[in-house]
């Protein structure tokens, strides 16, 4: 039998076909050409029904290393949730190869369940009518968490997520933010190696959002838990993730750092200059250009990947410059632009 002990493997001996050796960037999550095709039947008239296929996910390939924090974004219906459902074993892929911690999720769903934590933003994994603590007690036994570990984890999570006063409150009486914190704690009680969060900050107020993000960073730092989150809120990504994957029409259209997203999206920054008086548009070298003039104030757009220094020097040299500021591009606009370009290049793939 295997002599290498695995102290962090969630209590069950011998889990994982490919035991993690820690440190080395092995692919903890690996997708290779994964696809998911849905048959959709649409009613046409009284009895006739038309069948057609929808490719929710189309030859998706990526890997995520242990301990990475990845943001997974895309417009509605792009295939984000379908991907998460395949990663957790809720859905079976129509094709391709998918492994999480060496396990095929759809074939060994229950075994995988011990090693993953899932938070669905819009529905709770807690028992709605029961006090919060009852859900945790049940998780304790359901996941066969050793007593000592359970007490330790619960204590830590209750403290970090500030759940102390809420434990005896029925889940349905919790506010959205409280419930989300409760859900996150529930997902982490059994020390999962990977945490999936589907829209974890949706509907939360600013304070709750900040708290959730801080907590995720902390968990990742302390336990090197791999985090994969889908979101509509780009601040989630800016503040939590070191890597972004953008999916559109079931295909990965970007995978890399947040900064790189700007380049891919060919986004522009804007230099706002205030001159002493009204002037004709300033002369700047292409691709920079004046996009707006309003009295003595002018707006100059230039590629986000270039430095503003040269441009500023040039304007200061030739014009009576009073003040200036640089506006960062809006990431949402960047992604929108990227989608628009994709849509222009490839026609919609449905039916």
């Amino acid at each position: 039998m295997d002599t290498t002990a695995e102290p962090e493997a969630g209590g069950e001996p011998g889990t994982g076909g490919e035991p993690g050796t820690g440190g080395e960037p092995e692919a903890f999550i690996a997708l290779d050409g994964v696809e998911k095709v849905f048959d959709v039947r649409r009613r046409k008239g009284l009895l006739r029904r038309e069948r057609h296929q929808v490719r929710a996910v189309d030859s998706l390939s990526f890997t995520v290393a242990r301990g990475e924090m990845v943001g997974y974004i895309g417009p509605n219906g792009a295939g984000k949730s379908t991907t998460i459902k395949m990663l957790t074993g809720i859905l079976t892929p129509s094709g391709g190869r998918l492994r999480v911690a060496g396990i095929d999720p759809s074939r060994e769903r229950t075994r995988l369940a011990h090693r993953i934590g899932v938070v669905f933003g819009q529905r709770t994994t807690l028992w709605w009518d029961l006090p919060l603590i009852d859900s945790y007690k049940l998780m304790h036994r359901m996941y066969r968490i050793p007593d000592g570990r359970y007490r330790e984890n619960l204590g830590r999570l209750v403290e970090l997520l500030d759940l102390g006063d809420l434990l005896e409150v029925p889940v349905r009486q919790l506010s959205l933010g409280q419930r989300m914190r409760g859900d996150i704690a529930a997902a982490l009680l059994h020390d999962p190696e990977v945490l999936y969060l589907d829209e974890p900050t949706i509907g939360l107020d600013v304070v709750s959002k900040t708290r959730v993000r801080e907590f995720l960073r902390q968990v990742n730092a302390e336990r090197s838990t791999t985090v994969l989150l889908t979101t509509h809120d780009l601040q989630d990504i800016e503040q939590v993730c070191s890597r972004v994957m953008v999916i559109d029409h079931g295909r990965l259209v970007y995978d890399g750092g947040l900064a790189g997203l700007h380049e891919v999206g060919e986004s522009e920054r804007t230099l706002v200059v205030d001159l002493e008086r009204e002037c004709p548009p300033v002369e700047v070298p292409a691709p920079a250009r004046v996009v707006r003039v309003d009295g003595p104030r002018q707006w100059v757009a230039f590629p986000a990947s270039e430095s503003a220094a040269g441009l500023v020097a040039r304007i200061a040299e030739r014009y009576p410059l009073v003040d200036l500021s640089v506006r960062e591009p809006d990431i949402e606009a960047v992604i929108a632009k990227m989608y628009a370009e994709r849509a222009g290049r490839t026609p919609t793939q449905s039916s």
Partner: protein
Amino acid sequence: MLEGLRAYRMIAGMWVRAGMTYRVSFVVTLFGNLVMTGMDFAGILLMFSQVDSLAGWSLPEVAFLYGASVTSFGLAHLAAGSMPHLGRRIRDGSFDVLLVRPVPVLAQVGGDQFSLRRLGRFVQGGAVLGWSLVAADIDWTVAKVLLVPLMVVSGAAIFVAVFVAGAAFQIYAQDAAEVQNAFTYGGTTMLQYPPSVFGKDLVRGVTFVLPLAFVNWVPAAHVLGRPYPLALPGWTAFASPLVAAGCCALAGLAWRTGLRSYRSVGS
């Protein structure tokens, strides 16, 4: 299987403890359940206030059928009475939550919202059954004495199978959950009356296609010494456990198929 039973016990246990926190409400609804499920028997008593026999069966004999049907159904409903809510869980997406937990989904569906107040039906049916055993004119033999509890337990298993099959059906047709009421509540209602009341074709269907007749009709006809409308070999009176095992196996298969298709089709 064992893992499933363990999970079921765990979840059901939690709901029982939670339900006990409101003792008054518990007692009131338990009592309400008792009365409500007793209404059917009140209806039978009303009928017998006007007639001496129904299709040749006396009141104690009909009470025997009633008691057997309701105790079996009561047990099944206690164990699996939450399954009809599966469709709602699939519709609102909370079914996905069950799939990411490390215990069998069926155990989670069955144990959800488990409540001892459902015992009302079982208790009420049991009382009627007990009375009928005394009041009916039965030639008791050892085999018949053993057959009665065997009948109740097997009947419960058959009804559980119907509940599970109904749950599997809801994976395909979440909105049509009510269809299974025709088989569960409809089934237990039908079995409260003598088989000779119903059309031959209906009896054939309930004996050979959806074998609800083995919940009580077939064994009860033997216990009471009454002819069954169809010609069945004598050993069939004791075949209920076999039929129950078959039903449960088929229902389990249906559930697996349903779950697999959910996971490849999605919500």
